[in-house]
């Protein structure tokens, strides 16, 4: 067996840390992330507050941990939602072909005209800013991505002999899609999902930074940065930690996705 690629190992390690921290924050954080202590504001790092406290005396480590949870939850929700709709559309397009395939793919093209930010802006203008709208906006831009990946991968499988044999044996397109197509495109979909996870983390951070995502008192790396930006002359370090967390999470999922692709598609790895 070939050794695992370095990007896979590093990515998996970073992802394990981020998911681990998010999971731990569900049951334990050093302090309540929303606990205010105005007298203890801008506290230096100490045995009690490992990275100090912010402008309202809240514990920075606890907030970073709770924000990891927000980030993972948003990314998971957006990728699952966008991924299942997208993969469903891609499979449908591939199975039926003809004008259905054409229309689905034209719709996917249309999706690319709207970056997540524009969609989030529309939703925020109409319904007010919220984390749910951020999830919907990020999910929306994931639909065309997954639809294309699923269709391209499925189209290849449909030409395989065992699929042709199944069709000749009278198996319905739905059954073939469920039993043969879906399991065989799973690898491609999982690789894409890992990469889209990284994109979703970045998008959530940006939307929350702009005030279109997590609302107080929910913790979010993006929101922590927008608060820290106004305090840069007083406490510059507050503008550093959340950004580092974003980079670790995005880098982790990005590398893991690349590594998974190298493992599942060795042809590509060698071409590089």
């Amino acid at each position, binding site marked *: 067996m070939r050794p695992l690629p370095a990007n896979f190992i590093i990515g998996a390690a970073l992802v394990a840390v981020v998911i681990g921290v998010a999971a731990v924050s569900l049951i334990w954080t050093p302090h309540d992330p929303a606990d205010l202590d105005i007298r203890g504001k801008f506290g230096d790092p100490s045995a009690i507050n490992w990275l100090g406290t912010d402008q309202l005396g809240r514990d920075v480590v606890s907030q970073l941990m709770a924000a990891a949870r927000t980030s993972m939850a948003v990314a998971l929700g957006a990728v699952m939602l966008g991924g299942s709709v997208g993969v469903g559309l891609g499979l449908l397009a591939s199975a039926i072909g003809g004008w259905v395939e054409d229309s689905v793919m034209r719709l996917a093209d249309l999706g690319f*005209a709207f*970056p997540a930010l524009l969609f989030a802006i*529309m939703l925020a203008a109409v319904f007010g*800013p919220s984390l749910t709208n951020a999830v919907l906006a990020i999910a929306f831009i994931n639909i065309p991505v997954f639809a294309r990946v699923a269709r391209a991968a499925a189209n290849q499988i449909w030409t395989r002999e065992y699929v042709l044999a199944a069709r000749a044996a009278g198996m319905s397109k739905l059954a073939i899609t469920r039993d043969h197509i879906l399991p065989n495109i799973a690898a491609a979909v999982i690789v894409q999902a890992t990469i889209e996870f990284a994109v979703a983390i970045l998008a959530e951070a*940006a939307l929350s*930074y702009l005030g279109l995502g997590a609302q107080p008192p929910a913790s979010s790396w993006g929101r922590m940065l927008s608060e820290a930006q106004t305090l840069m002359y007083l406490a510059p370090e507050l503008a550093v930690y959340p950004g580092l967390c974003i980079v670790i999470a995005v880098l982790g999922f990005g590398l893991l996705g690349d590594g998974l692709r190298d493992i599942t598609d060795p042809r590509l790895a060698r071409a590089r």
Partner: protein
Amino acid sequence: MATCQAGSHMTYFLFRRTVGFIATLIAVSIVVFSVMNILPGDPALTILGMDATDDALAALREDLGLNDPVMARYFGWVGGALVGDLGVSHSFRVPVAELISERLPMTVSLAVAGMIVTLMIALSVGIFAAANHGKPGDWLTMFLSQLGIAVPAFWLSILLVLLFAVNLRWLPPGGFPGWSDPVAAMRSLILPTVALALVQSAVLARVTRSSALEVMRQDFTRTARASGLSQRRILWRHVLPNALVPIVTIVGMQFAALVTGTIVIENVFYLPGLGRLIFQSIANRDLPTVQALVMLFAVIVVTANFVVDLLYVLIDPRLKART
């Protein structure tokens, strides 16, 4: 014969792309209109809020033309937009087109400067990495670009402000003094442009590198090298032009990221452009302005993709014959 055929193929290609472009624009306008006008139920209520009086709501509904049938409102909006009438801003009480034309120069300057700096960084770094393939210089640039992809533009902006404005005090931390003082104006655009370009060039540098590596493996590069041309000349005159097709594709796709990037960056640096206007309009629940701006940004993205499609034909002679 061959040229004639290629010519008619090209006409057909251009025709098909143009029809697709117009169809996409129409579809985009329908999506924007539906989300902004049909989803909220009553836009007047969205704008004025729950405690608005019935009279005020009725007056605003009349004002916004909400009493007309949906189709009439849609065609009224599109028809107006085509002749530059984007409605009246609810919060600024001036035509939206006027608001946009006041702020457009800022956003365009930022996007154009960002694109130029992106290309300068990405092409040099990508070609440098390809020329040093497998050496430490290559690893370092690839490591930095991997990192660059993971760094959000707004955090990079904050770090740049921390370093160059807060600590070194070389550049202003944000705001815009106006074009009447060109030096001060340029100074206040340096950090935003760099923040926008560094993040964008991370992706593009990788594409440039792999595309250049592909070209360098081909025979004509070896011939050029064998005939004694300098490395520099080979790279910039032979490798880069042939590596352009994938680069242009990514540039086109990145244009969307660049446009939304300006929205974010303007808000980080408090620059009075369209991105800032969009957020002021959201805060003011100014639906006509948000609708016009979202449509404008989407049109820019779609147009950029269309232009990239056309550029292919110009750049890649093989496509000219094949399409």
